[in-house]
C-alpha cells in the first residue's frame, strides 16, 4: 500500500510553474532540477541558513542532523518548526532510504559528503546539489596559500550559493537583495579602512579549543584581512592547525579573537598566568566574537555583511562606529530574516 502511494506522489505532475533548469554545482557536477523546487532536503548548514534568509523554510522537508550545534540557537528563531523536521543525514553521509522516504525534489549536500551517496541518490532519481561556498578558483589555487585568491574564491562561492539557492527556490529577488546588502557593507568597510598602511594593521591571533588556530586558507582569514587586520598565523600555517604557546609568544599578537562558542578558551586565556605577558592580554584586547558575526571556515552572507564590519569596529573603533554596526545588524535581521536582532555588539 505504502509503496504504491509513494510512487503515486512521485509520478504526479506538479504545478505548471515549474521549469527544468540545468547547471553545474560547486563540485562541477551537472544538476537538473525542476525549479522552483517544492521539497528540499538540506544536508549543508550554510545552505540551511541561506534558505532561511531567502524565506524558503516551507520548502525544506529534511535537514542535516545536529543543525542546532552546527548553526547555533538563533536558527530556531529564523526557522520556526525546524525541530520537527526529520534529519536523514549529516555533512558526510545520509541514510538513502530515509531521504527517499521524504520524496525530495532536491538534496543539498556539503563538500565532504560522500560521493557514493550522491551516486545512490541519483540512481533513485533524486537530484543532488553540492554547496561548498567556494568558487571554482578554489581548486586551482588549493595549494597556494595567498589570501587574495582565497578571498576571491570565498566571495564568488558565497555569491553563487546565495543566487543559485534563490533560483532553485524561486526567490531570485530576495537573493539579489541579500547579496547586495553583503556587498554594500563590505564596500563600506573597505572605504573606511582604505587609507591604512600595512604597519598600522593590528596583528590578530585566533584562538580555538585545543590550541588550534586558523591559518591561511580559511574564510576567517579573509574576514580578518577584510577587517583590516593581519592574521599572525597566516604566514606560517595553512588551514586549521595546533600551535604551541611558544609560537604565540613569538608572534606576540595585538589582539586575540575567540568565538563565543569557545568561551572556556577565552576564560582560560584571561586566567592562565603564562598568557599574561602576551601583548593582547596585557592590553586587554582579547575579544569574544558573537554568533551573528560567524567567523567560520566558510562564509555566509551575514559573515560578509556583519562579521567583517564587527571585526573592523573591534580593531578600529575610530574608523568604524558602534552605531553603524548596530544599525546594520538590526537592518539585516529585520530585512533578511524578518525578525528582531537580539544579539549584543
Amino acid at each position, binding site marked *: 500500500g*505504502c509503496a504504491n502511494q509513494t510512487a503515486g506522489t512521485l509520478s504526479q505532475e506538479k504545478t505548471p510553474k515549474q521549469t527544468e533548469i540545468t547547471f553545474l554545482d560547486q563540485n562541477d557536477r551537472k544538476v537538473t532540477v525542476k525549479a522552483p523546487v517544492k521539497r528540499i532536503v538540506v544536508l549543508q548548514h550554510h545552505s540551511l541558513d541561506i534558505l532561511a534568509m531567502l524565506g524558503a523554510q516551507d520548502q525544506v522537508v529534511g535537514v542535516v542532523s545536529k543543525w542546532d550545534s552546527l548553526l547555533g540557537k538563533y536558527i530556531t528563531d529564523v526557522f520556526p518548526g525546524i525541530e520537527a523536521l526529520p534529519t536523514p543525514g549529516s555533512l558526510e553521509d545520509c541514510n538513502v532510504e530515509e531521504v527517499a522516504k521524504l520524496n525530495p525534489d532536491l538534496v543539498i549536500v556539503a563538500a565532504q559528503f560522500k560521493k557514493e551517496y550522491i551516486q545512490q541518490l541519483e540512481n533513485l532519481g533524486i537530484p543532488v546539489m553540492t554547496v561548498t561556498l567556494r568558487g571554482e578558483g578554489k581548486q586551482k589555487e588549493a595549494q597556494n596559500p595567498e589570501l587574495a585568491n582565497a578571498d576571491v574564491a570565498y566571495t564568488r562561492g558565497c555569491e553563487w550559493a546565495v543566487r543559485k539557492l534563490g533560483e532553485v527556490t524561486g526567490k531570485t529577488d530576495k537573493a539579489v537583495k541579500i547579496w547586495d546588502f553583503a556587498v554594500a557593507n563590505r564596500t563600506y568597510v573597505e572605504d573606511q579602512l582604505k587609507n591604512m598602511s600595512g604597519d598600522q594593521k593590528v596583528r590578530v591571533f585566533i584562538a580555538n579549543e585545543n590550541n588550534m588556530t586558523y591559518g591561511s586558507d580559511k574564510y576567517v582569514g579573509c574576514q580578518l584581512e577584510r577587517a583590516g587586520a593581519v592574521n599572525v598565523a597566516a604566514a606560517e600555517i595553512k588551514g586549521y592547525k595546533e600551535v604551541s604557546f611558544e609560537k604565540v609568544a613569538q608572534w606576540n599578537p595585538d589582539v586575540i579573537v575567540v568565538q563565543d562558542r569557545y568561551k572556556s578558551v577565552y576564560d582560560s586565556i584571561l586566567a592562565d598566568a603564562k598568557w599574561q605577558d602576551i601583548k593582547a592580554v596585557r592590553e586587554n584586547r582579547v575579544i569574544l566574537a558573537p554568533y551573528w558575526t560567524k567567523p567560520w571556515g566558510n562564509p555566509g552572507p551575514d559573515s560578509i555583511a556583519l562579521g567583517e564590519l564587527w571585526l573592523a569596529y573591534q580593531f578600529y573603533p575610530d574608523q568604524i562606529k558602534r552605531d553603524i554596526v548596530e544599525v546594520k545588524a538590526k537592518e539585516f535581521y529585520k530585512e533578511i530574516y524578518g525578525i528582531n536582532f537580539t544579539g549584543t555588539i
Partner: protein
Amino acid sequence: MDKKVGNITLGVVLILLPVVLFIASLMLGPYPIGPFDVVKIVLDNFLGTGYVDNPLAENMIWKVRMPRILGAVLVGAALSVAGAVFQGLFRNPLASPYTLGVSNGAGFGAALAILLSSGAGLNVFFVQLSALAFGLISIGITFLLAAKARRSTVTLVLSGMLVGALFSSLVALIKYVADPYEQLPQIVFWLMGTLSGVTYEKLAMILPLYLPAMTVIFLMRWRINILSMGDQEARSYGVDVKKNRTVVILACSVLTALVVSLAGVIGWVGIVIPHLARIIAGHDFRKLVPVSLSLGICYVLLIDDICRNVTAAEIPLGVVTGIIGTPVFIYFIYKGKVRWE
C-alpha cells in the same frame, strides 16, 4: 542428544541462518516496501514478469539494498575467516586480519587518494584501487622485511605490526595536511568503515581476487591445521612451511585488503567472531573456517540491519559492532567456554 545428530543440526543451522538473514535484510529498510513487494520485485528480475509496480521501490531493492547486503556478506566472510586463520597460524589469540598492517596500508592508500583528488574530481574507484594497492604493498613490505630477517612466524608478525605502525603514522600525516573541512572528514569517515558506499561496480572490482583467495583458504584447511602445529612439526610432516604459510597468509591478506578497500576498516568482526567460532568448532580448521564464515556473515548482516534501520541517520558500524557483540562474548567467557591453550 547424539553428538553426530548435534553436529548435523548445527551444520544445517549454520548454512540456513545466513540465507535467512540475507532475505530478511532485503526486506528491511526505512523506505517502506512490503515483504511481498520485495519478493515480487526480486522474482520480476529473474522471471521477467514485466510487472513493475513502483520503479523507486525496485531501484531501492536492486541499487541500494542488494549491493550493500552483498557487501556485508563479503566483508563478514573475509574478516572472520582471515581472523580465524591468523589466530591459529600465529598461535596468538590477539591476532586479527589487521595484525599484519594490511588495514593501515589500505587506509593509507585511501587517504592518499582522497588527498590527491581535488574535491570535484574525487573518484571512488581511484580511492578503492589505491586502498587495495597499498594494502597489498604493505603485505609485500612485511614479507620482504621478514624474509631478510629470520623467517619465523614471530618475525613476520612483528614486521607486520611495524609496517602497520608506519602506515598508520603516514595516515596521521595525511590527516594533518588534509583540508580539515572537505578531505579530513572523508578520510576519517572512510577509515571508520561503512557498508553504505558499496555499489555493484565496487563489488565487481573485488570479486576476481576475492573468490580465488577464499577458495584457496577453503581448500587448504587441513594444511592450516598442520601449519598451526608449529614450523618444525609441519616441516617434518612434509609440509613446505615457508611456501604454504606464505600462500595462506597472502590469501588472507588479499581478502582483508579487498574488503577494507570496499568498506573501510571495520573492527571487531575479525577478532571476536573467530573466538566465538572456536567455541563452537574447536581448533580444527576444517570446521573452524566454515563456522567462522557463517557466523561472520550473519554477524555483519545483523549489525548492518541495525545500522540502517534503527534511527533516521545511519548509526556508524563501529558503534553497533561492539555493543551488540560484547554481551554474547561476555556470556561465553563467563561460561568458561573460551579456551585457548
